[in-house]
């Protein structure tokens, strides 16, 4: 074979289709490549969307039942001052939050009705003088400073604005605890996307500032007249 012949052979091999073994996938993609790429892209997209929107929220929150159920409607009928009958301001202006056992004992020293939840409450907590470890839906992280007095007394806001119509519920809903931060789902809001319809759907910092801006609230500390993080955080 001459050098020219060799050169011709080489060029022929280079120009013509390569002898590809039938098992190679390149042939498939070579023929239907675009479709498969889109298919797999879509597959990845759909799987991650399902993970992100459906599975993730379920994994992120653990479901916890309150130690005892509570009927707000029933109790609201019995008291005179509405929410403030049990969730009152103390003499020093601080807010009492969730009632302590001593407030309940007046009526529930003994079992009054036939509700098994009340029986449980009396036997497990009142009789043993143990505080009920209520799970608090609206508990903010400990670095948040929040004054109920400033909002309820000074700004004349209604409880419902932030807490919703909890006073009209007959049962306590399941407490969903964030496995990472340890706080209630109600802070971020039920909607995992963070969207809200009502003012009480979320309790994040943005929700505070939204209202503060809308109402043109003084952005500075009342005590120090300085603005910044430490007005609401400590």
């Amino acid at each position, binding site marked *: 074979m001459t050098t020219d012949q060799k050169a011709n052979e080489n060029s022929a091999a280079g120009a013509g289709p390569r002898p590809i073994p039938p098992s190679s996938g390149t042939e498939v993609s070579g023929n239907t490549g675009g479709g498969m790429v889109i298919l797999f892209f879509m597959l990845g997209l759909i799987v991650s969307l399902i993970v992100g929107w459906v599975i993730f929220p379920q994994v*992120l929150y653990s479901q916890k039942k309150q130690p005892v159920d509570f009927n707000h409607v029933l109790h609201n009928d019995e008291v005179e001052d509405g929410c403030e009958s049990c969730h009152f301001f103390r003499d020093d202006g601080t807010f009492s939050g969730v009632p302590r056992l001593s407030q309940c004992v007046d009526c529930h020293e003994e079992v009054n009705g036939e509700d098994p939840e009340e029986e449980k409450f009396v036997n497990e907590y009142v009789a043993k003088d143990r505080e009920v470890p209520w799970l608090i839906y609206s508990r903010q992280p400990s670095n948040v400073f929040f004054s109920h007095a400033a909002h309820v007394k000074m700004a004349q806001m209604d409880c419902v604005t932030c807490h919703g119509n909890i006073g009209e519920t007959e049962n306590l809903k399941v407490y969903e605890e964030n496995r*990472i931060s340890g706080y209630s789902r109600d802070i971020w809001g039920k909607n995992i996307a963070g969207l809200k319809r009502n003012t009480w759907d979320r309790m994040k910092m943005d929700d505070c500032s939204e209202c503060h801006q809308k109402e043109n609230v003084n952005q500075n500390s009342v005590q120090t007249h300085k603005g910044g993080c430490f007005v609401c955080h400590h």
Partner: protein
Amino acid sequence: MKVDRRSFLSFILGGAAGTALSPLPWKLTDDLSIWTQNWPWTPVPEKGEISYVSSACTLCPGGCGILVKKSAERVIKIEGIKGHPINDGGLCILGLAGAQLLYGPTRIRTPLKRINGGWQKISWQDAIAEVVAKLMQLRVDGLAHKVACVAGSDRGTVPGLLNRFLTVYGSPNFIRTPSIWDSYELTLYLTQGTRSMAGFDIENADFILSFGSGLIEGWGSPGYMLRAKSMLCKKGGRMDQIESRLSKTAAKSDHWISIKPGTEGALALGLAHVIIKEGLYKREFVDGYTTGLSERYQRMIDGFPPEIVSRTTGVSTGTIVALARDFAGARRPLAICGQGQGHLPGELQEFLAVHTLNALVGNINQPGGIWAVPEPEYIDWPELEMDAVASEGFQQPRVDGAGSIQYPNARYLLSRLPAVINASQESPVELLFVSSANPVFSLQDTASVKKAFEKISMKVSFSSYMDETAAMADLVLPNHVFLERYEDIPAASGFPKPVIGLAKPVVQPLYNTRHVGDVIIQLAKELGHNIGAAFPWEDYATCLEETLGDKWDALVEEGYWVDNAFNGTDWANAFETDSAKFEFTNSEIMALADYAPLKPEGDETLYPLLLVPYDTMRITSEYVGSPPFLIKALEDTILKGNLGLVEVNPETAKALGLSDGQDAKLTTPKDSARVKVHFSNGIMPGIVAIPRGLGHTAYDKFLAGKGVDYNQLSSPAEDPASGHNAAWGIQAKLSKA
């Protein structure tokens, strides 16, 4: 269908796009940021109603009023009570950190019994039965006097109950832990004839001459002294500190007079010499209300002219003369003594010499002077009816020798106890109770103290904490801590007025502990007969309320009772000596060994340096161990990592080839320890200093194993005049580690 590389990448890309379009990354970021800002292991106070309970601090004998802030049932802060006669809103670092002593990990939660070297939890009933069995056996064997009790105080109802129990059981061996107040009590008794407590009207003085007293470092009642020192400064008063080391008190004084350690008594005598020689003393008082000055002068003061004193003390003659003139010339001069926080009784003759200065300037029971504060008299329990065994046991000589021919003046001599036990074939103490004291740590020469304690067949500790003494005990019957119990505080160290405080329970007891007063009453009732009859109260609370009588309501309401009208007794009625005058000397004082600076232990050729201890507000060295907050607040000139620092003059260190910050070995005739060198120009060449209160082996990880224990390196030295421990230092050497 085969998945190739491009499909896989597409899948990943699709997944990434989908994830970005889902709330997952944004929500995770948010949650993680909340988590990082609120570490779940960082303690956050329980949310709840804020309330305040006023009580009194019993962590030291200072008697400060405390206002305890609670959130629901959790103690979250302790502060001083404004308007309180002692501390008026102020509080020391230990008081502020008190909540850590309530919630800290070092507490004993239930009665414990030592079995095969380990601890076993036992019930209160079993624990008390064990003690009762031992007590009964000793009485049957005629060894009732072999029961002893070491307590942090001898005043108030709890020490009163312990003492009463021992007496009616048949033992004279109730022993109080030593302090400068032993020497002050003796000084007042010998010169003024009264059994009283020394009080100091610092705030109304205009010249404080302190012979090494850590006035702002925990001497006396810290709450009062810190406040009084500020008042003195505000009023333009002067304070001179005589001390071998630049302590914080020295640094905050108008003059720091650097003196050879252990020679303070000589300087006091030298000052007295000048005042008498130059006729600077207050004639109205000395001529009218005192006796024995010339005899005292001849016997003692004459031998201390400034030239000789200067050689002994290292203070120049000019300074001595000027200081004497300034002191005598001040309107309300006051001399005080007792080293550092005053945990060591010191030399009785030094106290007498310093008290002589106060007498020469007539500042006794006067505004700005030293006042003899009467001992509290509210404890008026029924007379004891002793049975034959009790009478016989009680008449046995005290095991510590106090009150014997050799030590006629001392009331308690705890520092002698280890040596007495070690010198005996069989321990003279068979059963030892320890209450509010940690003698295994606070007595000097730890090795011999431990050896002595090992010889005692049964040791019962009432400690709330696993301290060094509790760790050696056979039974621990844990007391409630100070925020969980009632207790009367019968006086405040060094406070010039009679004052009673009441500590109240701020929270319910957290653990299975019991008030030591209740345990004593129960032990007595179990023993029955005359012993049970001596304790007619149902429980300690009843005993306390009945004892305080008409003061109870005011004490519960206010937290304290103070005799505001007390202004010291006037000179004509103040002295209960035979002459009814202040006695510069008398037969009892003449019988005492003369003053001579005490020589520290150790051969100077082998141990060329002198090791002295110092006190700081940030380290406790008595019963209550320093809580973590105090150790955190320690300067790195005292503790670095787990190594304690030794203060050395750069000159001394350079001669030894040691540099600043270098590890070294500190050796005394007793022991050696690894230390870090800290250069300080505030200490004389040839002297090295370490703080008292570090080097614990017990308590918790926050305190144990940090620094060096001075008591382990040193030994007690007996004051020939009183029998008390007067050791102010020990010979030492420092070498490269």
